[in-house]
Every structure is written in structure tokens, then in C-alpha cells.
């Protein structure tokens, strides 16, 4: 190879290089900023999928440098760091663990699961390794702050925001050391300042508890609502069911009220807290929640749906006239001998096989609304088909709504918030609290008096809200009843003991799903009666007014 061929080769290489750069240049061209200039294909795709760095969250120079410095071996570096983080955990090197986690997050700032996993690691696993509750709190705080950093760097990650809210509520408010954690949080001015910088209004009444200091549940709730705002603005919820996502915020307000009462705040403040909790829970009922079906549902609209369905059904049956009966007759005629025999034998005389067969036939012999509609008289047939389709759609909606309501125990919490905001319930709790205090102070006479007053009130509360027997309060109440029997020095209860039924219920392992269902139905009836009584009262008042 002589000099000139060498030079020629170099030129060819250069030309190839340039030729390869041209498509790259065209593909990667940045947007011009003007209208119609969306930039190259890569830029467009970045914009379309919202994966431009500036779209995702705050740009962190440290993170960018680190990504650059790892020369495309980001994954390898992160894997090594994960291994290191684990080693540090085994060696109880918490400080270094934290430092390594920070570096992992710098390398992979948009991996939501990394933030979530490691924040959980710090707040739940590492914090429990400390003996001093203040150190434990500090570690929980590290976890939440780590998550907050994740939120900053991932603007479109509602789950991270939700998780932050979850930490503030669940970890600080439900741990063994919740009393200490809640106090430390309320006094943590530095954290409050940091929260302010994240636009969490810790100074607003929305975040303040009974002592006018920030309450962990309410601050958590503000985070959660911040996430709801994100979703309402059009960001998709990923890796979480919408119902679970939306339920937590209102729930945290309930938890805040519960925490307030358990700490002995049993006055108007507690009632107000429950009122707000009730409002929040009802607003959850009014929220449109996406489902796996094509439609969204509203948890609070179940009765409305059921009413609509009934109306549609009534109309369909009315316009269909005799068609339904005719259809049923056709189905009846199609039965074979054995089936017919089973069906026609009176239930008491059926053999076991016949009973089973008859049970199956009950469903088979009911003509579907769609077939009734199709066979309806010609002038109304179109309307009938419309109605049948509407009923089918409503059925699907009702089923979904009921499913979702059951999933989060919607009705129970609704009732709870209604019951708890009554003056009588707060009074019942206050009496019980005072009785416990008197008992602890060995003032038995006072304790017994307060216990009895409290039990009488609780009996009334349970009468109106039987579902409350499923609440945590029932466990506490049961413990109080035991202490009362000890104070009274008696083992059996007199017949007129107001909570006799409740005690039997508690002793009978009542927590079966059937029992629960029964209680819920009972509760529903009670509420209906109450509403009717109220309506009646209103009607009679207005009638009285009219007559006057």
C-alpha cells in the first residue's frame, strides 16, 4: 500500500462517516421553536412520548454528569451500586447505604420503582434497625425525603406522589411508635420548611391538627391530593388501580380524625374533623373513577343507577306487554320430560337431583331482556331494544360500582364518618376515655360511673350504626368492658347491661362474612328508616305550615 492509496482510504472513510452522520443529524435535529418546526424524528418522538428530560422533571446537573461519566455503562454501574447497597445493609453501614442510594438515583433518576423500593427500604427496613425512636424517625424521614426527591425528578409519576402521601400517613401514623413519630413530625420545623418548598401548604388549616401543628395524616393527604391534581390534569396512573389511588386521600382524613380522638381530643374539634372526613369521603363518591371497562364509575351513584335501571325495566316490561310471558312459555315448552317433571313437582316433594335441576332451570327459564325486546310488538320494538341495551349497560355499571365499593368498604367508612360526627358518639368516646383515665388513676367509683354512662351511649350508637361493631373501637370497647368487670369485681353481666348483645357478638367470633353482610344490610335499612322518618317529619312540618 503506497501513500496515495492510504490517503484515498482515509478520504473514503471520511466520506462514509459524513454520510452516516447526515441521517443522524436529520433524525436528531432539535425543534426550532417556531410553529411547524417540530424538529427531527427523534425530537418528535421524545415530545410525543413525553420522555424529554425537561418534560420528566427537574434537570439535575449531578445526575447528567454521572450518566455521561458512566459512558453508556449506566446499567452496569447501577447494578454494581445495588450490590454495594445490599452489602452496606448487611454491614449496618447506614450512612454509606444512603450515599449509595443517592448515587443509584442519580444514575437512574427516572426509574420510579428504584425510588419507591429504596425509599421503602430506608423508611421501613432500615429505620427498624435502630433502637432509639428518634433515630428511627430520622430514618423514616430520610425515606420520605428520598421519595420527595424522586417526585421532583419525575413530574409525571402520580404513584410516587401517592407513595409519599402514603409514607407520611401510614408509616408515621400507624407504626408501633406512632405517638412519638406524630409528635416529632409536628415539631419538625426543618421538615415543614422543606415541605413548604414543595408547595405543600403545611401552614394551612388543611394540614393542621388539633394542637394547630402540622398533622402527619393531613400532610400526607395534601400530598395525595397533589397527586390527584396531577391525574386530573391528564397524567395517567401507572402500576396502581385508580380506586386504590383515589381512596387514600379521603381515608387519611378519617385516620387524622381517629388519631385525634385516640390522643384524647374529644370535643368540637373531633366532630369538625369527622365532618370534614365525611365530606372528603362523599367527594370520593362523586369522583369519576376509571375502571378496566370502557366506562368510569362514581361510587356514590349506586342508588341512582339502581333507580334508573328499575325505571328502564318497568318501562320495558310495560311496553313489551305479553311478550315476556310468551317467551317464558317458549322456554318452558323446550324442556324435556325429566326437566319438566322436576320443574312441575312441588318443591317439597322433589328429589335431590330434581332440586338441583329446578335450581338451574330458574335461570334458564327466565327470558333475557334482549330476547323480550326483540320479540316486542313492532311499533315499540325499537324502544324496547334501546331499553334492553340500556339495562344491560346499567347492570355492568352497577356491578362495577358495587365491586369497587366492596373493595374499599365504601359504605362502612361512609357510615363511620356519619356516626362519628354525631355529638353523641364523641360524647361516648369522651366518657370512655375519662373512664379509662379514672381507672388508671385507681378512682374506681368515678371509673365505674363513667363506664356505665359510656356503655349506655355506646349501646345507642350501635343501635343506630350496627356496622360500627366491626370498627377498631369495638376491640377497645371490649377491653374497657373487661376492665369494667374487673373494677366491678363481677364475671357475669346483669340482664339490663346495655352492651349485652354486643358482648355476645364479640364472644361469638362474629367476624364472618355472613354476619358482616347481615350487619351491613341492617345498617342500610336503619339508614333508610332514618331518612324516611326525616322526610316524614319534614313533610308533616311543611303540612303543618301549610295548614297554618
Amino acid at each position, binding site marked *: 500500500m503506497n501513500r496515495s492509496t492510504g490517503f484515498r482510504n482515509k478520504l473514503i472513510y471520511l466520506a462514509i462517516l459524513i454520510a452516516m452522520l447526515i441521517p443522524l443529524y436529520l433524525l436528531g435535529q432539535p425543534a426550532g421553536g417556531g410553529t411547524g418546526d417540530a424538529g427531527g424524528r427523534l425530537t418528535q418522538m421524545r415530545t410525543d412520548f413525553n420522555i424529554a428530560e425537561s418534560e420528566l422533571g427537574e434537570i439535575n446537573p449531578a445526575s447528567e454528569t454521572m450518566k455521561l461519566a458512566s459512558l453508556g455503562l449506566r446499567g452496569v454501574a447501577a447494578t454494581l451500586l445495588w450490590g454495594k447497597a445490599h452489602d452496606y445493609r448487611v*454491614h449496618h453501614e447506614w450512612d454509606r447505604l444512603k450515599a449509595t442510594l443517592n448515587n443509584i438515583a442519580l444514575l437512574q433518576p427516572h426509574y420510579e420503582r428504584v425510588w419507591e423500593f429504596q425509599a421503602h427500604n430506608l423508611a421501613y427496613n432500615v429505620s427498624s434497625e435502630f433502637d432509639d425512636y428518634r*433515630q428511627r424517625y430520622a430514618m423514616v424521614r430520610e425515606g420520605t425525603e428520598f421519595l420527595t426527591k424522586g417526585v421532583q425528578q419525575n413530574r409525571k409519576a402520580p404513584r410516587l406522589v401517592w407513595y409519599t402521601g402514603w409514607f407520611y400517613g401510614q408509616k408515621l401514623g400507624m407504626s408501633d411508635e406512632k405517638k412519638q413519630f406524630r409528635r416529632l413530625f409536628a415539631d419538625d420545623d*426543618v421538615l415543614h420548611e422543606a415541605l413548604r418548598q414543595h408547595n405543600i401548604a403545611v401552614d394551612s388549616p388543611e394540614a393542621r391538627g388539633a394542637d394547630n401543628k402540622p398533622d402527619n395524616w393531613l400532610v400526607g393527604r395534601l400530598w395525595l391530593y397533589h397527586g390527584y391534581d396531577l391525574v386530573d390534569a391528564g397524567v395517567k396512573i401507572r402500576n396502581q388501580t385508580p380506586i386504590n389511588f383515589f381512596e387514600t386521600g379521603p381515608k387519611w382524613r378519617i385516620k387524622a380524625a381517629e388519631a385525634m380522638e385516640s390522643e384524647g381530643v374529644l370535643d368540637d374539634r373531633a366532630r369538625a374533623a369527622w365532618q370534614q372526613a365525611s365530606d372528603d369521603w362523599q367527594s370520593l363518591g362523586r369522583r369519576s373513577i376509571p375502571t378496566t371497562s370502557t366506562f368510569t364509575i362514581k361510587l356514590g351513584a349506586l342508588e341512582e343507577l339502581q333507580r334508573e335501571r328499575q325505571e328502564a325495566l318497568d318501562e320495558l316490561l310495560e311496553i313489551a306487554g305479553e311478550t315476556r310471558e310468551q317467551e317464558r312459555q317458549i322456554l318452558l315448552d323446550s324442556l324435556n320430560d325429566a326437566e319438566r317433571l322436576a320443574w312441575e313437582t312441588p318443591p317439597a316433594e322433589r328429589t335431590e337431583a330434581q332440586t338441583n335441576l329446578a335450581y338451574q332451570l330458574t335461570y334458564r327459564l327466565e327470558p333475557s331482556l334482549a330476547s323480550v325486546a326483540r320479540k316486542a310488538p313492532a311499533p315499540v320494538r325499537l324502544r324496547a331494544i334501546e331499553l334492553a341495551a340500556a339495562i344491560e349497560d346499567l347492570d355492568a355499571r352497577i356491578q362495577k360500582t358495587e365491586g369497587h365499593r366492596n373493595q374499599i368498604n365504601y359504605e362502612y367508612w361512609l357510615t363511620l364518618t356519619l356516626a362519628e360526627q354525631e355529638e353523641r358518639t364523641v360524647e361516648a368516646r369522651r366518657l370512655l376515655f375519662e373512664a379509662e383515665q379514672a381507672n388508671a388513676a385507681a378512682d374506681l367509683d368515678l371509673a365505674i360511673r363513667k363506664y356505665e354512662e359510656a356503655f349506655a351511649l355506646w349501646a345507642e350508637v350501635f343501635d343506630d350504626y350496627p356496622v360500627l361493631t366491626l370498627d377498631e373501637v369495638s376491640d377497645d370497647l371490649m377491653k374497657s368492658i373487661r376492665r369494667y368487670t374487673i373494677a366491678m369485681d363481677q364475671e357475669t353481666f346483669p340482664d339490663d347491661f346495655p352492651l349485652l348483645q354486643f358482648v355476645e357478638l364479640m364472644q361469638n367470633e362474629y367476624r364472618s362474612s355472613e354476619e358482616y353482610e347481615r350487619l351491613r344490610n341492617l345498617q342500610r335499612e336503619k339508614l333508610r328508616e332514618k331518612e324516611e322518618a326525616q322526610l316524614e317529619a319534614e313533610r308533616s312540618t311543611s303540612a303543618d305550615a301549610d295548614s297554618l
Partner: protein
Amino acid sequence: MTLQPEDFWSFTQWLLRPQSFLESALLQGIVLVILAIVLGLLVGYIISAARYGPSEGFYAVARAVRDFVRFDFPGTSPRRVSALARLAFKEAIRRKVLVVVALFVVGLLFAGWYLDPRSSDPARLYISFVLTATNYLILLLALFISTFSIPADIKSKTIYTIVTKPVRATEIVLGRMLGFIGVGTLMLVPMAVASYFFVTRGLRHDHEVVDITDLGNGRFEGKTSYDQYHEHTFTMDPAAEPGADAFGLTDAVRGHRHVVRETDGKYLIGEPTGALRARVPSYGTLVFTDRAGNLQEAGIDVGNEKARGGYGSSGVARLIGATREARRYEHGYMEGGTLGSAIFTFSDVTPARYPDEEGIPLEMGLRAFRSIKGDIVSGLNGSITLRNPDSNQIESSPITFVVQEYDIAEERLPRQIEGTDGTETRLLTLFDDLVTPDGRLEVIIRCLDSEQYLGTSASNVYLRPAETSFAWNLTKSYGSIWLQMVMVIAFGVMFSTFLSGPVAMVATFVCVLLGFTAESIYDIRYYMDKGEAMGGGPVESLVRLLRQDAMTTQLDVDNVANKVIQTVDSGIIYSLDAIATSLPNLPKMLSTAEYAASGFDIFGSLLARHAVATLGYFVLAFVISYFILKTREIAA
């Protein structure tokens, strides 16, 4: 910092291992030298035989050995060596290696981005950062400068301008090595100075007094401003005399305190103190007692995940299969409210060594483990009892404490303490009653809360007879880095005598890497020998990876395939094990940084061990390089 058994060995113990010579460093060295000689002669003979025929080859090898022993080695002239070293030095400088120092400074400038300012022990983070950064940079540099020089000379034929002069091969090798060591040293010094200032300045910060309340009697209590993610509270003692300055001390936060001074009603908060320390610990031996008071070698295992590694200290004994188990100290726990305890026996406890009238400083880093929630608000309680090892009847009343986890708690063992001498309760004198005439003292630690546990290991409770300066300790860590650099340069030069530059670099790098991964290789071999499924060797791992099998399940392949995989894997792992065992233990040397970072004085014996090992490898690399160069000269 939890030390492992080998960390406690003195220099002689390490070198000779009186109880088990098989594990000794000396034996390892001897085996290595014999192996090198045998292999060297064999390879030399094969090469020579191929070149000159079987008999002539033998004479060639014999001549080479004779030359070395009779002429080259004794005739090595320091003057020529220094001239060659100067050349190597200049050459390296010309290749702009000083850029590495600039790189280091840039690293320091941006370090703040990656160092967590909220760390609970920033000093530790800063020190370990600078030391590891320097370590890796210097090793990388040593790798580059040492491996490219000779191959480049040979390629450009400039080596002939040297070899044609009356220069011996020993001088060429030694000159290169020393020259490169000179360059490395020249760069290490500014890096050390920069590190010192980086750490001390990085930790420096101010606070202001934001709140002060009068406690009466001229005493005050106050709070400082929140700076650098922390704040302190402090108490002021009354001034010694009216008009004089009053002094106070803040609480310890993030490993430091500040002195507070009051002058004319103004409060001044001094610089942070206590963050950069170099404690000189005096360790004792540890035994436990169980709940019934019976002596036990280890404490209770509360089920923490075990750390890996700890095979390296067994040396040749492990390689030949005489020892298998890893030697590690784990935290042992003692049960509270029972006779369970941890008994430390300290020796050399003399008034001359502990002159402080206030008592002997005892430092503890204990761990707590709760089996029940217990009292959440208060920490677990423990007690320290002093006992005379010769006469168990003589013991002090317990000194109680509340455990401070992940922090070093400082206690004083008073010179006079209430206690019993077996017959009556009286005031015991530490050095007369509790310490034996030969200077031994037992310190017994117990957990006082029942159903709760306190944990410790041999290095977590110690007496502190003295403290050295941080600067000196940092210098010692740099000494350790220097030794590693020497090692890498020696290997680099050795490989560069027969490999081309890039290949020599890769070879040296592999040696360094093998040194760092030695413990994992030993671990794999351990499970292989034991016949326990734990991922297996490289081939088995690959199969598992592809099949997505867990590492502890039995390998699900047919018998023949299994046999083949196992055989190949054993071959690879046993060879790797042999190579890794014969290579210097770099991670052990790197771990001296941990001492400086954790605020412990680096033991002299540890540095001496590293120095001797380095010297050994240096000499070995030098001799090997000489012979190879000699062979190449013959070829040329």
C-alpha cells in the same frame, strides 16, 4: 468498623502464625518463591531448548542464573540505576502524567455534588471519598505509566541505545521501577495535601446562637442556628471569675461538637471539634456467657444476614484444603436480664499507659436487638462491671448506661469505684484491686432489660490509651496507597518486559481485579468443596442465568452435562483460586482507608505487614523481569 480476626494479629503472628504455620504469610511467600523458581527454570529451559537444542538450552539457562548471581545482581550500580530512574521519571513527566493530579483536583471540586451533605457522619464520608478516589486514580496511573514504557522502547528500538551501553538488565528493570515510583510519589504528595485541606475545610462550618435561656447560678442553656443540615444545643458554665470569659460545649451531632465562648455578653461558637480523630484502641479478648452463666465462644445469633468473605486470612492452608470455613467475627448478642454477658479481658492495663486521673477511657459501639417492643421511648439499658481476672470475687458495682447504637459511646472506668472484694463492699482501687499485677482487667457488659439483647464483637469495645493526630493518620493511609502503587508498578514493569503495552496493561489490570475479587472466588470454591448449590462456577452460573434458575436450586441438567459443567468449573475455579492466592491482597491494603475514615489510628503492625508483602512482591517481580529481559536480549 468491625475488625476481623486477622486485623488483630501482630506482625510476627501474621508472618509466622505460631499455632498454624500453614496459614502464615512466610509460608505463602516461600511457596510463591519456590513456585516462581521452578516455573521460571522450566519455562526458561523449554524456551532455550527450543532455540538451541536440549543440552545447549540447559547450559543457556544455567548461564543466565550464573550471570544473575555472579555478575548482574552484585554488579548493579546505584549510580546507573538512578540515572535510568531519572530517565524513566522524565519520560513519564513528558507523557503528561501530571494531568492526573489536575483530574484529582477537578474531582474534588465536583465531589460536593455526590457527597451527601445530610450524612450523619460527614467526616467518614469525606475521608473515605478522598482516599478511595486517590487510591483508584493512582493505581490507574501506575498501571499506565509502568506498562507502556519498555514495550514502546523496544518497538522504537531506543532500548538498543541503552543495552549497548554497559548497563545490566537488573539496572534497566530497577531503574524503570524506581523512576515510576518516583513519579507516583511526586503525584501522591500534592494529592495528600489537597485531600487534607478538602476534608478539614469541607467539614468546617459556623453556627450562630439563636436561643438562650438562663438556668440560674450563672448557667445558661441555648440552641444554635440550623446550618449544614444540623443544629446543636449547648450549656454554658459560669465564668471562672467575674469579668472573665465563660465557656460552654455543644452536644455532639454528626460526630462533632463546638466550644461556645461568651465575651461581654456576646456568644461565639468555635470550630467543629472531634470530627477528625485517630483513636488508638487497645483491644481485649472476648468471650460470652449464656443465660445460665456458662462460658461460650460466641454470643447469640439474632438472625442478621451474614456478611460474605473472610477466607483470605487462611493463606496456603485454605488453598490446599486444610481449612475451609471462612474466619469472620459477627456480632454476638447477650440476653438481657439473665446471666448472659460479654466478657472482655484487656491486657497491659497500667497506670503508665492510662495516666488520666479521671479514669480509663472505654469506648463502646453496641447494637441493640429487641425481641419485644418493650418501652419504646427509652433505649435499652446495659451495665459495665469491672472484675479481677484472677479472682472473680473482686468486682465493681455495675456502671449503667443506655445503649447508643451506631455511635461510639465513651465511658470512663474510674480509678476508684464501689465494689466487693468477696467479703465486703468497699471502695475498690482500679489498679490495685481490679487489675492483676501483670496488667489484666476484665470488663463485663450485660444487658439489663429482660427479653432484649445487646450485641458486640471483639473490636467494638476497647480501651483508648491514646490518640494521634488526624494528619498523621491520613499520612499513613497515603503510605498504604503508596505501597499499592509500588506493587502495581512492579507488576506492570514485569508484564511489560514480555508483552506489548496494551496487553501488559490488561494483564496487570486483571491481576489487580483478581486481587479485588479473590474473596468471591474463595467463596465459590468453598461452596463447591462443600457440595452445596450456591450458583456454582462461571459455566454453571451462565447456564443458570440462561435458564433463569435460582442459585440455590439443584442444577436441572442431565447427568453427563452436569458432570462436564462441574469439571470445567472446578478447573477454572481451582486455577483462579491458585492465582488469586498468589497475588497481593489489595483489598486488605485498601481497607486501611476504613481506619482513617472511622477515626482509628492505623496500626503500625498492619502497615508493616503491607510493607513487607509489597517488598516481597517487588523483589519477585524484579527477578522475573530480569530473566525475561535477559531472554529477550538473547533473542535479539
